[in-house]
């Protein structure tokens, strides 16, 4: 497990990390969310040893990080970086070797990932001969070639077309199933909801909400109810202590003061007509994000 604990880092007058903590378990995909400048990239760089924190601790499987452990990590920076004039397979081999692979293994594994990501046959081409989307796939292949135990991906979905997004999502899920710890930052919250089990929301250098998607989006004060052909179209407005948030035809989203009022809503719905749907409504991740960030500011 990757554990970043109480990280602090200041650049001149800018506080990038102000006590940030993060945990990424093996076999899980963690979404690392936050507005621009929240400290996500700096935290990732600390995990990779690129940036040294002023204080705090970074461990992998309860041991302090060092170059040997970091060589088992895979990193995809936000501003993609590869050698533009080098051949695709040449750089996969080079980067694989830097991660302690034998040259032949790095070539074979690099070729495997290129094929897997839909880039079969481009190995001998120079990187700058490929389209930007394909360059991004090569970047992903470079991150995966050495079979990392931890994947740290900074905005991996940006710039990908729908096919690329699907392909990357599948790869991340599969890697996690194989026991790899995966953490990625993204502003595409629907993708985070789709791929991650756990989310960490950070703002101003601190982690402000952490939990599983289910926990973070769960509510007990919002009910989605649908009554077919109600005898009174205004039935929802007549339940005492209940606010109607949205109404769309027969479907209504209501806010209750506490869980005990759910029975009152159910009774009112039954009285109004045929109940087609009744459930507690989950929050959207974007709402959780906004609330967390607003609460902080």
């Amino acid at each position: 497990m990757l554990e970043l604990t109480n990280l602090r880092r200041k650049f001149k007058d800018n506080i990038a990390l102000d006590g940030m903590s993060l945990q990424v378990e093996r076999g899980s995909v963690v979404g690392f969310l936050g507005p621009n400048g929240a400290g996500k990239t700096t935290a990732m760089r600390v995990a990779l040893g690129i940036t040294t924190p002023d204080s705090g601790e970074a461990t992998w499987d309860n041991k302090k990080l060092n170059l040997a452990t970091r060589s088992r990590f895979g990193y995809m920076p936000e501003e993609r970086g590869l050698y533009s004039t080098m051949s695709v397979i040449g750089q996969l081999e080079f980067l694989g070797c830097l991660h302690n692979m034998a040259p032949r293994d790095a070539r074979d594994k690099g070729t495997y990932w290129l094929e897997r990501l839909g880039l079969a046959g481009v190995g001998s081409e120079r990187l700058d001969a490929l389209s930007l989307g394909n360059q991004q796939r090569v970047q992903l292949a470079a991150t995966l070639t050495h079979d990392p135990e931890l994947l740290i991906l900074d905005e991996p979905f940006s710039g990908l077309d729908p096919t690329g997004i699907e392909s990357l999502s599948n790869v991340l899920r599969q890697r996690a199933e194989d026991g790899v710890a995966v953490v990625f930052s993204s502003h595409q919250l629907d993708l985070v909801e789709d791929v991650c089990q756990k989310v960490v929301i950070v703002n101003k250098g601190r982690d402000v909400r952490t939990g599983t998607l289910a926990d973070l989006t769960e509510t007990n004060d919002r009910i989605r109810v649908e009554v077919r052909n109600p005898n009174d179209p205004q039935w929802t407005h007549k339940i005492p202590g209940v606010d109607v948030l949205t109404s769309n035809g027969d479907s209504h989203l209501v806010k209750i003061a506490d869980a005990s009022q759910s029975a009152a809503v159910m009774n009112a719905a039954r009285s109004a007509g045929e109940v087609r749907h009744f459930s507690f409504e989950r929050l959207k991740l974007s709402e959780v994000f906004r609330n967390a960030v607003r609460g902080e500011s």
Partner: protein
Amino acid sequence: MRVRQLRLIARREFKERTKSRTFRITMVLMVLLVIASVVLPVVASRVQSEPQLKIGVLEPSDSAIIPAINSIQSGLGAQLRVQSMPDRARAEAALKARELDMLVVEGDAVYLAVEPVSGAPNIQADRANAIASTVHQVEVLREAGVDSAEVIDTINAPNLPVKGLTPAPPRNSEDAASAYPALILLFVFLTLGGAFILNGVIEEKSSRVVEILLATIKPSELLVGKVIGIAAVGLLQGAVLVGATFASHKATPGAPDAGALSLPVVVYAIIWFMLGFALYAGMYACAGALVSRSEDAQNLVFPLQIPILLSFFVGAAASIGGPNPVVTVMSFIPFTAPMTMLERMAAAEVQWWEVAISMASVAVTAALVLRLATVIFAGGILRSGQRVKLRDAWRNPAG
């Protein structure tokens, strides 16, 4: 520092640089240039023999004048054809028609077809002056009553020797001259190598690939690996060019030995290239780490080029002009030592301990510079955008 990582970085640098088309084309052009510089002068000297100088002497009253002019032929660097002219009008007409190159009028002047511009270098005017001086000597000697045979002997008598009160320092002039092409090679490779380092660092920084590299290796490993790889490229280039020089000398009968590379000088140049490159490369890498674009690097690089340029010009002047106290001092200053000490070593005017002190000073300074460079490199390499201040890079070494 891990040897495996150093080797990987160095090998990539070497492989990528040497397989680029620009590198191959540059190498071919440089080899052609070397061959041409050896072969062309030989060919030219065969095609073009010494120029012929046609001199008319107007009715010489003195029979010693024509032999006297002929006697200074070797000093004029031309084959002389001296003839007596019957009258002035025909002589001037011949000069105007370029049938003559010069006309000597006894007791008057030496005429050329066009009056030479005063102060401007003109080999024909120099020859005319030498002839005028000889004719004047003949006139003075004859007036003094010296007979013709003695006049020629006097004119051709050896000059007074020029001597020093203390003996000249030991100096192998041929090897000193052979330092000149070695200096050019050293200058080219130090400058080219520095440019390779600078551009390589900027490329890695601007493409952000450095972020991936620094996740697996230390900044010092990246820096030193890069320096080793590019030094190897420089040595390969040097080996090819030196090989081309020796081969073209061997294959060209009549190629002059003076100014050619000698084996000891090549060995000295290799040693000084490695020491000098270690010293300058760290500074070039720092400059690259502080900027994000090549354009911004120019201002930073200029101060680094000053000692290289200065030591090249001073060393080159000394290789032609002889020992010089400025060169001696510069050969102990680490930033100017590589080229100036190479020149002094080639001229065999140094003691072994002088070389040892000079090399040690460069090696120690290079180690210090590389150490400082690693800190600045690490502090600057991850910062994109505007130029990073040296102080900021120094204070925040880890990004």
